């Protein structure tokens, strides 16, 4: 698999190259946004790892936007800031995921795998009519949700939120995305709706965070993501 690493720091480029090559990937690097755009066009990598702050124009967010004009290549953005607005901006620019520096190689590798898995199944747009995750089963065709043997009843709105999240496993959905998909675009600022409904859904699903039994994960200040199917956390 071919991975493009875009970072202005030579040390980081070198480290990521060594690390990812060690896991058996082929790695090419770019130091600037312009180089990155050219490299994607010429080499067509399978994944792009893109630093947000490139220290020169165009910066990471712009590169991401430009790539999205013509390419669907999975993009994972790197940032030193843990600021939520940056994360939302990255997702809005079309990034698939983000990682905050410093991070471990193990984590980066896991994110790459997850992003690739998602994009691999996307063309069919989740043809599976039944979603399994741990004890949870969602039968999309019949709108039936069961936890273990027990059927759980949801209001239409709760079900819509659960279905939206569950059909995008592992993918971060921003508050705005959830609001405009479930309620409509007039409700983009009403994030407290989501808080209330997600809380109710979690209770009905019988989540127990103390034992790490969770289906819906919170991305602080950004949104929610559903756990990867049959792969808690």
């Amino acid at each position, binding site marked *: 698999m071919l991975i493009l690493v875009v970072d202005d720091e030579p040390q980081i480029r070198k480290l990521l190259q060594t690390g990812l090559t060690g896991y058996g990937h082929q790695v090419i690097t770019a130091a600037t946004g312009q180089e990155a755009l050219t490299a994607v066009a010429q080499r067509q990598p399978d994944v792009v790892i893109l630093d947000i702050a490139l220290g020169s124009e165009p910066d990471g967010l712009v590169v991401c936007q430009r790539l999205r004009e013509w390419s669907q290549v999975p993009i994972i953005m790197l940032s030193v800031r843990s600021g939520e607005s940056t994360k939302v901006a990255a997702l809005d620019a079309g990034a698939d995921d983000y990682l905050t520096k410093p991070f471990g190689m193990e984590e980066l590798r896991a994110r790459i795998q997850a992003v690739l898995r998602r994009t691999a199944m996307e063309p069919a747009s989740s043809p599976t009519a039944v979603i399994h995750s741990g004890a949870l089963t969602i039968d999309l065709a019949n709108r039936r949700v069961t936890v273990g043997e027990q059927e759980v009843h949801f209001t239409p709105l709760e079900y819509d939120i659960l279905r939206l999240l569950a059909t995008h496993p592992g993918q971060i959905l921003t508050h705005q995305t959830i609001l405009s998909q479930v309620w409509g675009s007039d409700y983009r600022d009403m994030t*407290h*709706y989501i*808080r*209330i409904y997600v*809380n109710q859904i979690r209770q009905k699903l019988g*989540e127990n965070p*103390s*034992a790490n039994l969770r289906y819906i994960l*919170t991305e602080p*200040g950004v949104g929610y993501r559903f756990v990867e199917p049959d792969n808690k956390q």
Partner: protein
Amino acid sequence: MNYLSRSRTALRPLPYLLAVLVVSMITFGLWWLREDLTLANFSLIYIVGTFVVAIWLGTGPSLLAAVLTFINFNFFLIKPYYTLSVEDPREVIDLLVYLLVAVIASQLAAYARQQAEAARLHAAEQNVLYSLSSAFNQLTDRANIVQVLQQRLPEYLPVQDVEVLPQKVERPSEDKPTESFLVLQAGQSIYGTLRVTFTAVPTDSQMRLLMACTVQASMALQRIQLAESAQRSQSLEEADRLKTALLRAVSHDLRTPLTIIKTSAENLTDLHDRLPEAEQLEMIRTINQEADHLNKLVGNLLDMSRLQAGAVTINRHWNALNEVAGDVAAHTWQRYQAERIRLDFAPDFPLVLFDYGLLLQAVSNVVENALRYEPPESVVVVRGETDATEVRLLIVNHGPTIPNNLKAQVMEPFFHGKDGRIGLGLAISKGIVELHHGRLWVEDTPGGGATFILALPWEEAPESTE
């Protein structure tokens, strides 16, 4: 409504017409009864009429009334009727004395009226100034002062446009009489120029009020400036204190992991061909561990200094503290691979306004601290409580009790715990909670241990609709 809109100088016809009307009515009444009444009756009733006009309508109309009554008296009521000549020469004296008394009385009454009017104006001015200065007193921002001026001045004065120019501006040469330029100045400082456009040429009392308002605004601007500089020097002082503590910390707590990393790396470079593989692996693990530790420490130091410098921006949204607690519980499980936390929240625990990321950090730090001292046979309880004013998170630990004299200190930056490493976590938590106008304090757990209580001010969340 304008308090002070009544013009003092303009000559308006209505009061004079009213004066003529009053005099005519009295004359008609007296003429009707002229055979039954005496001269003394006439003059007394006329005097009363003149008085009423003076008090009601002011100087000019009352003078007119005095002269008119004098003429009517003579013309209609003194024989021979309907001429200005007088039969009895003694009545000439009566008439002249009447005129004198009427004029003096009308002037006195009008003067009293003016005084009353002036007092009313003065009281209105005082009212305006009082309400303006109490409005100013609640403000902490220059822009708000301008806003209040723009909002309030049209209520008090007939003005159509109020603007504050950023610097001292002299009145421009093409002189518009409806425009006033007043410099906002207190002591040596100039805060700009107030430009006011009146709907008509302002009267003296209106100008006087405008100037008084300008003085109030200048004083408010000065107060804000002084408060700002006081706060700046306070945060400088605070930053200074932090710098000292930081230097102390850097010399010990940062150097230790750095030294470990450096020596391990050097050993690996120099001795890699002689050291057994297991030992090499051990050194690499140590480097990794110490780097994590260093990363956390640097992150904490940065957070602390940003908090202390007031450089943290918070994004307050309606969020759920039980969600935060759930995240912390899940992270704890991932770290210990065991259930070390018990959550205790009502199903309808309310939403509160806070920054999710910041509160997550604050609660994580407190929980991490509680877990460090929790005996292995029990678990930390995280419980939600509400009352009329606050939403609280109780983090209940069952380890050793914190002595009373240390209860406040444990949340100070760089408090050294029993493991000898600098403590910033609780100080950061406290900083974050206080940024949300909340409180963080510690009490004893009944039966032993420390209960940290994190309280956020409670406001009613907007209702959700389905």
